[in-house]
């Protein structure tokens, strides 16, 4: 629907990430493919260990040994980036791909004033003078909604509250006008009322600057509020991808359906919550066939032998027996 219209900004194909361990290689990511269109917010949701953060790490080129890309390709605006030399990747990071991480206190340098951190980043990536960089830093702080930005620019990170710090981190990510931002759990460390401020801000900036965002989170609520499309991950694979309204309202993969049903509602009180029994398999014990089959109520012998594929279309599920025919756009 969205992805096929023009050339995608980010295109990931059959990405496979392997960790070499003492007991042989562990496949952490297995055949992950997705596109992000310019200006689009793609949510990546899944439980801990499903591989959502790893996907973001691979895209931004921060995968550390023993993890390695064992297959597949990553293209940014048509250019292949997964095999770039480290130096070229370093220049691309920050300039064309920005990053926002979960804990704003650890992603800011505690001994540098926030203004200096912004100026340094701007000077690294853009051919401007120091004075221009400072003016740009001030504009950015105003844009992310920091009150009294003129004085706050000379404050240290510890003088800011959690929500304000995350705004500074967003300003840092926006410094060089990247076309893609990887936001890994950007609101998880914040209170609900602050969380809403930050997601609203992200969404507004994404619209105004035409920046695409890959939003990695475990919180389906944040995805539903913020993303245009959502990819649900399970045991290193994408099990369902599609527009957020369709996936949340009419999930097609049994795992997504179970996940949606296990979220307690704020509107009605149910006697019993739907639960998916068991737990996600460990990486060294991923069952053959569909990885979800031991926990799936619809699994048949076929599921235990054949790995389901994921069609690259509007709303698709990697399932042999999807709950409904996914609506294809």
């Amino acid at each position, binding site marked *: 629907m969205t992805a096929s219209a023009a050339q995608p900004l980010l295109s990931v194909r059959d990405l496979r990430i392997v960790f070499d361990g003492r007991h042989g290689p562990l496949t952490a990511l297995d055949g992950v493919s997705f596109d992000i269109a310019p200006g689009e917010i793609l949510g990546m949701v899944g*439980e*801990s260990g499903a591989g959502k953060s790893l996907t973001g790490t691979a895209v931004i080129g921060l995968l550390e040994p023993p993890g390695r890309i064992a297959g597949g390709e990553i293209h940014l605006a048509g250019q292949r980036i997964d095999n770039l030399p480290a130096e070229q990747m370093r220049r691309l990071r920050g300039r064309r791909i920005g990053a926002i991480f979960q804990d704003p206190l650890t992603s800011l340098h505690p001994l540098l004033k926030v203004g200096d951190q912004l100026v340094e980043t701007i000077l690294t990536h853009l051919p401007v003078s120091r004075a221009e960089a400072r003016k740009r830093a001030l504009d950015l702080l105003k844009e992310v909604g920091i009150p009294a930005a003129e004085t706050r620019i000379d404050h240290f990170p510890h003088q800011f*509250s959690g*929500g*304000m710090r995350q705004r500074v981190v967003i300003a840092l990510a926006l410094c060089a006008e990247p076309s893609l931002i990887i936001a890994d759990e950007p609101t998880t460390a914040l*209170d*609900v*009322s*602050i*969380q*809403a*401020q930050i*997601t*609203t801000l992200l969404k507004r900036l994404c619209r105004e600057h035409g920046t695409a965002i890959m939003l990695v989170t*475990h*919180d*389906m*609520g*944040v995805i*539903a*509020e*913020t993303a245009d499309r959502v990819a649900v991950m399970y045991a290193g694979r994408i099990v369902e991808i599609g527009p*957020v*309204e369709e996936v*949340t*309202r009419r999930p097609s993969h049994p795992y997504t359906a*179970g*996940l*949606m049903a*296990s*979220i*307690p*509602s*704020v*509107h009605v*009180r*149910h006697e*019993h*919550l*739907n*639960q*998916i*029994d068991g*737990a996600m398999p460990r990486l060294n014990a991923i069952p053959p066939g569909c990885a979800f089959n031991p926990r799936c109520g619809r699994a048949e012998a076929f599921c235990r032998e054949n790995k389901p594929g994921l069609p690259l279309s509007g709303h698709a599920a990697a399932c042999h027996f999807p709950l409904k025919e996914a609506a294809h756009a």
Partner: protein
Amino acid sequence: MRDNVTTLTQDQAMPQPVMIETAPGDDIILDVAAACCRFDVSAPALSRLFSHEPRRILRAVENVSFTVKRGTTFSIVGESGCGKSTLARMVVGLQRPTEGKLSFRDIRRADGTIGPPRVQMIFQDPYASLNPRWRVGDIIAEPIRELKLRSDEAAVQQRVGDLLETVGLSRTDASRYPHAFSGGQRQRISIARALATEADFLVCDEPTSALDVSVQAQILNLMVRLQKEFGLTYLFISHNLSVVRHMSDDLAIMYLGRFVEAGPAEQVFTQPQHPYTRLLLDTIPDVERPNRARRPMSGEVPSPINPPAGCTFNPRCAQAADRCRVERPELRQLGDVRVSCHFA
């Protein structure tokens, strides 16, 4: 004091079980009356002397009163720093109230004994609350041995096995170490350890916020089942409104150490009276209504050392009038609900 009340304000308050038949309707298990908890966070006396700084008092919990009925769940909701965890610590006795008192009423247990309820706590982080060097069996057996609840070792092991099965683990798990378990399973172990004391009252401080949603559902279902089976009473602390909605019979919304709204959960959720409650309900992400337009609450929680004058919520409140900036609203009874707002 020789009545059927255990008072935590007294230093050596030993429970004095008195044979008093509790009236059928009067099944209150915990009574918190005007409890306050203040911390002195002033600079050291000498530096205060030189810099002429005044003493600084952090009012973590201010004038909080509520009762919890036996076999029900009372939830406390609020953002970080609102005092909900301090209140939980006061209830389990880890923190003494500066003013006011918290008292547990004696209860009649299933085995016929009468006495104050046994109180246990379930912590947020199941990775930090279990000793990594102890086997699960020993972790659960510790309170049984310490309180001498079983006479011999065979009975202790039997009880440990039963408890593991009660929380959905297997008997053989007793010989494994905590690292072999996932987050959800560890939280089950914490629950088993709390139940090992034959607890009647569990204080659960964010028991599922470190867990994934599908695992959260398993733990919440387990807690509901145990409540029915053993008649447990929960004091449930959370910032997650949808979890609170699922679990609570009664709830209180806290803001800067005070209750702003308290009452039956159903009523607070369907007819929120206080602007803060309304805003909280409005800002939580809703999976049932994706991409709805919402206006986020402006501002942040002010510092509890220097709270705003008048109503503490006034800087963030859209309805705030001059009166709100001067006069602090009392917690007033409006039907079944108590609200502290001049305009409720």
